[in-house]
Every structure is written in C-alpha cells, then in structure tokens.
C-alpha cells in the first residue's frame, strides 16, 4: 500500500486541496483546488494497484466533470462566491456534525478494522478483468446505470429548453 512517506505527502496534498476548496473565496480557485485533490487521489489509485481507475479519474473527473464546473462558473460569472453560512448556530451545528463524523469514523476504523491482515494475493486489475466482473456480476446494475443516464439526459432537456408560446400562456 505504498510507503508511509509517500502516503503522508499525498494525504497532505489532498487534505490541503480539500480545505482550500472549502475556504477559497473565488469559485474558480475552488474548482482548481478540487482538481488538485482529484489528481492526488488518482496517484493513490496508482499506489493501490488501480492504474485503469487512475486514468479514468483524470479523464472523467478532472477532465469532463471539472471542465463542466468551470464552464458553468464562467458562464454565469459567479466567480465571487456567496461566502459561508452567516449564523453562529449554523456554524456550530456544522462543526459538531463534522467532529462527530471524524471521531466516529476513527473509532469504527480502529475497532472494526484493527489489525486485520491484508490479503496475500494481489488482485488482477487489468481493464479486461474489470470488464469481465462488470458484465458477469453487475449486469443489472449496469443496465440501471444506463437508465439513470437516460433520465439525466431527459431531465437536462426538460430544464434547458425554452417554453413554447402556447405553454407559456397555459402557465400564466
């Protein structure tokens, strides 16, 4: 699972990028920090014997999805972001929820996983093997994913088309 030094360097980069994404005033900077975070996670995938996923992470996440984000930010001219929640109680609640999440997951990590030995075998993770698993064990979820994408496309069409005059009169 990689050496501790490499892990700590990458973990520092990804946490720094995530925190900067959260605190950045400019939405474009936030998007760029998130790309840095995705890149660090892609290197983690390489360490964890998932080279194909690392490539997909870069092309799909850092490429397609973040370009979409940047495109919308610049299209709307929404670089100056609205800032953080203004109420004290809201910030306090968020802080408590965050603390509970971190502490809870640490407790689960140590008590449930403490000392379990890693498997001695190294999984075969060539794209061909992944495809065999996908189409043998996960055929139905794969089809459902196709339907999900279709729903997304139809939803986009419904939201982005202009109303015809007749529909506008019916609305009013």
């Amino acid at each position: 699972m990689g050496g501790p030094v490499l892990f700590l360097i990458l973990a520092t980069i990804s946490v720094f990028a995530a925190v900067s994404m959260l605190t950045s005033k400019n939405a474009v900077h936030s998007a760029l920090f998130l790309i840095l975070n995705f890149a660090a996670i892609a290197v983690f995938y390489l360490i964890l014997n998932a080279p194909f996923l690392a490539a997909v992470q870069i092309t799909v996440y850092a490429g397609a999805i973040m370009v979409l984000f940047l495109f919308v930010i610049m299209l709307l001219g929404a670089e100056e972001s609205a800032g953080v929640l203004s109420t004290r109680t809201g910030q306090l609640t968020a802080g408590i929820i965050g603390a509970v999440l971190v502490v809870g997951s640490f407790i689960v990590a140590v008590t449930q996983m403490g000392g379990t030995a890693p498997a001695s075998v190294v999984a075969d993770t060539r794209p061909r093997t992944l495809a065999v698993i996908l189409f043998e064990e996960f055929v139905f979820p794969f089809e459902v994913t196709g339907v999900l994408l279709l729903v997304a496309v139809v939803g986009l069409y419904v939201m982005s088309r202009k109303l015809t005059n007749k529909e506008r009169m019916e609305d009013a």
Partner: protein
Amino acid sequence: MDLTTVTIEWYIALSAILFTIGALGVLLRRDAIIIFMSVELMLNSANLLLVAFAHHLGDATGQVLVFFVMTVAAAEVAVGLALIVAIFQSKKSIDISEVNLLKG
C-alpha cells in the same frame, strides 16, 4: 501501532477526513456550485475507500463499484449544474439562502 507500513486504517482515516471536509462544505457554504463540489469530494472519498479495500482484500470487485459511483456523480453533476443555471436565470444569484420559494 506500527507506523512503518501503510495499513487500511490510514486510508480509512484519510477517507473520513476528506468526507468530513465535504460534509462541512455542504453545511457551511451558501454557494450552490461550491456545495456541488463538496458533494463530489464526498463521492471521491468513498471511491478512495473502495479502491483501498479492493487492494486490502485482494479483490477487484471494489474497483468495479467505483465505476458506478463515477457514473452517478457524472449524472448528478449534469442535472445539478442545469438546475443551478435555471435558478441563476430566474434569481440572478446562486446563493442557496435566497432559494426559499417553498418556505412557508
């Protein structure tokens, strides 16, 4: 505790921290686009954990699950950003504290 080898707990801890940062982003920020980015961060922390466990257990199935998460993330981003554009066209703002038409 052995600090010379990277075990699965390290990845659980990192994933928990990244997920929490994402959750805090959703709770704290008022900018709809930043909220969507925080959701992406949470999905990515789950993906990292799936891949770490796939490596830990020596089973490639976890890596296949990551593809499903990525597909859902892509669909969610496409629909979410279209919603943001639609909200911006009617409100001239993406501040979610101004989107309160359903508030009684």
